[in-house]
């Protein structure tokens, strides 16, 4: 099945661990096979990732206590510290990056994973996350800022 690696990667970042990610990716693939007629574009990757995302969200709702709530704009701490070295996430090692990404709210994490790890366009991310392109733009900008903040906070500890 094509794009299985992308499916697993998204599931892993949404679920937070390998075991649950395997379950989610597997269930998503079963659904994908069942609804393969629903895939209208030639690539199919965004379509499969949409199924993975929906499967993961249902799974999280059923199995995890934490509700999936979008972050409020006002909760965003101003962590843009002018004095800190530019672009910390470029110098951060992969473990620090991974740990920081885990701390982000779900919808920010998914936007970053789809963009940075899967290389989807904003339009494709909008399709997968079922939000307008403007929302994708704002989520990515805020997600990167939060990610950078998380890395800086960890470096300071």
């Amino acid at each position, binding site marked *: 099945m094509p794009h299985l690696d992308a499916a697993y990667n998204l599931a892993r970042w949404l679920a937070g661990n390998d075991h649950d990610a395997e379950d989610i990716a597997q269930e998503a693939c079963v659904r994908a096979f069942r609804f393969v007629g629903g895939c209208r574009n030639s690539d199919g990757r965004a379509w499969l990732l949409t199924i993975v995302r929906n499967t993961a969200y249902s799974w999280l709702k059923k199995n995890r206590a934490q509700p999936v709530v979008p972050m409020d704009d006002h909760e965003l701490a101003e962590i843009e510290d002018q004095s800190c070295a530019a672009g910390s996430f*470029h110098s951060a090692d992969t473990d620090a990056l991974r740990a920081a990404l885990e701390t982000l709210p779900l919808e920010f994490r998914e936007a*970053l994973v789809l963009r940075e*790890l899967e290389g989807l366009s904003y339009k494709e991310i909008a399709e997968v996350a079922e939000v307008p392109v403007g929302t994708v733009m704002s989520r990515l900008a805020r997600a990167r800022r939060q990610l950078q903040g998380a890395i800086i906070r960890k470096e300071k500890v």
Partner: protein
Amino acid sequence: MNCAESYLFLHAHADGELDVAKSLELERHLKTCSACAPSVRRYGNRRCGMTRPIRCEGKSAG
């Protein structure tokens, strides 16, 4: 364009996702706004903030 919009568009611009009209608008703002300069240094020149090594591969992937 205000600084908040500029911040959003800066990311989209670095990602190669901003249309020409908005890019011009952004450039005009950045030319005259010193408050946005640190963000430009941080995000302006790169397409990607992260790298792929943290991509997760499942046992069944491939």
